[in-house]
């Protein structure tokens, strides 16, 4: 059996390393980077400090992947990746927390006087809460997450309607089919495309 035995120094203790989680994050990274608009160089397993954000209540939240969307300026992008391969389970419950965290972190940024313009994307292989699908990223849904599921994320602060609108606009949900990868351009093709498009800028 192969082990990463010798120098596991970069492994974070903050999140258990689960094969499905790692595989899910790998797929999310490959898929998003294949768009040529996004790069995700850092992950929670090896770069925990940079993948961590602070909520209003001071609690740290660790994201699976951190990178950016190319643009001028670049947009910071945090990925919550879910490796579920069946309907049900804890996905819907975890998504409530995801919404509450997105609001709380954005509110903390604004409270600190700097809007970091962070986007929070939920990448999963399996749909969830399908009857509410159209409302998953609305401000109303985020408000419910804060009031009914995770009031601790507010740390006794009132919900700010403007912040709610800002945070909700920066949340997205994507479902990635595993076969999606079969129809992506190959790394070699993408390298050629990128050398022409130069989305990122000069090498």
């Amino acid at each position, binding site marked *: 059996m*192969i*082990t*990463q*035995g*010798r*120098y*596991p*120094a*970069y492994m974070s203790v903050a999140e258990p390393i689960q094969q499905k989680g*790692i*595989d899910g994050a*790998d797929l999310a*990274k*490959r898929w998003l*980077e*294949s768009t040529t608009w996004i*790069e995700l*160089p*850092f*992950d929670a*397993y*090896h*770069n925990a*400090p*940079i993948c*961590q954000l602070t909520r209003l209540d001071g609690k740290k939240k660790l994201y699976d992947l951190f990178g950016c969307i190319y643009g001028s300026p670049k947009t910071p992008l945090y990925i919550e990746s879910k490796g579920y391969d069946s309907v049900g389970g804890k996905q819907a419950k975890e998504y409530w927390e995801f919404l509450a965290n997105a609001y709380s972190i954005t509110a903390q940024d604004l409270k600190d006087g700097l809007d970091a313009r962070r986007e929070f994307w939920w990448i999963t292989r399996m749909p969830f809460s399908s009857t509410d699908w159209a409302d998953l990223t609305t401000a109303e849904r985020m408000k419910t997450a804060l009031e009914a599921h995770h009031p601790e994320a507010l740390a006794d602060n009132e919900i700010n309607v403007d912040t709610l609108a800002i945070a909700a606009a920066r949340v997205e949900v994507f479902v990635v089919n595993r076969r999606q990868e079969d129809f992506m351009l*190959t*790394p*070699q093709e*993408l*390298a050629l495309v*990128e050398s022409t498009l130069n989305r*990122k*800028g*000069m*090498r």
Partner: protein
Amino acid sequence: MSTRSLAVTEQIRSAMASNNPDDIVNGVKQAVAQEVTSLSPDANVVLTNYFNHTYMPDLVVEWNDAGKRDERPIFLRNDLRPEATERDVRSLARQEPVVLSLTALDEPSVASSPLREQAREANRVLVTDVVSLADMATPFDTQRSTSRGREEAPLLRLVQANLLKGGRGLLTPHDIERLAQSATPPETGTALTEQFLATFQETADEMFAPDASLRLRRSAELLRLGLGLSTDIIDSIAGGSGELSEVELRVLIPYLLVDETARANTRLWHYIGSMMSLERLEELGNALAEMDVTPLVVPNLETWTGKRAQLVLNNSYDEDSNVAISASMLRTADFEMEDESELAGLNRGDSFWSINNRLLTADAGPWRLFIASDARRLKGRTASAAANWDDISPLISEFALDSVDLRGLSRRIYVGAEGSGDVSSDVVRIRSSIDDSYQVTKVHVRRPDDDEKLGNLNVDFTEMTVTAGRGGASIASLVRAAELLAHSQPSDFSALTAAQALPLTGATDPESESA
């Protein structure tokens, strides 16, 4: 685990723990680039703007191999998890990359795994880690050297230099340990035995792409031949065509030049010479500083070509005055001085070839001869005296005389042929029929055996230069023609052109110097 491995591991760990993206990227890439440069000092390492990207490399190693540019992308990965790495090997294979993990993979060298097999089948994909690179850079922690100061393990140096350029398959620290051992004789001074070479070749075949493996084998065979451990010559040497790479030249030539047995092996040097040129010898300047390169130059005098020779008076020849040549004297002679420390190499009285200031240089009696592959590097003097025709005419007899401008007190006569043709007899007739004292500033000559397509040699007595045509001229021809310039103080240049036993000069042997 070496001190170097521990250091680079800590450097990367520290960078990865940062909460600043730039600090992570710069810290990790600098640490990796340091290891790459250590292994391949002749390569240029380009840091890209990408980090841990799916399809864009983090670094690109660029190098020139015998004038041909080549490169290999390096993709950094946090680890070598089998599924992800196997995917990388499959999807990146056509880019022939190095997939380099920031953490070591603790897999025994002999173990068989799908990743090892897949990496091997990919033919030119190297999957390894920074600990392995650091272990390879200093496999024994300290550099072994002999009492003469040369590296004890030239094969190991070549393996190090080729690892990132031609390595393949999965190489863990265990593999690297095996590779380093296979390239190093077990004890200092141990001969490269048949068994040692067989083991080395087997390991090289396994861990290097076929072309790189062949080159390593060729180097091993050259060492074996040079050190007198084999009498099977040339034909048996694998990959016996093509040029030697810069690294091969830098490692093999200095190593063999200080070995008495190798120095006397003319066939070895002729063979090595067939895989290089005067220009490439000049480029080795630093690696050959202070060394007597006569064993390498003499067997190749007729095949290597140069563009210009220049003769200057060698003041250090005057034993009574003890005047050594100085930088100002060279500048007076219009030389471009790149490194004045190289003057030390000029101030020796022996007749041997050396490389000084990227010029092939030798002393002969009161003269110092310079030969260059690029005529622009020898500008010549401007006001040396013209030669008296009667003084040089006996010396010209071994050449075909293409043209000469005879300047007498009362007549000036140009003698030349429409095409290439020897006008010597015409000049003799003119000289005997018109009495005058003829001065000559230039003659155009050819050695009878030289290729006519290369053109003639312009011997300029006022510049004290010999300039070849566009195609250049053999070094032998340049030396012979330069002897015409020495007519005022004829000297013996034969030691510089004769293939004979070539003992070490005192200057190249620190032991004898200190004795």
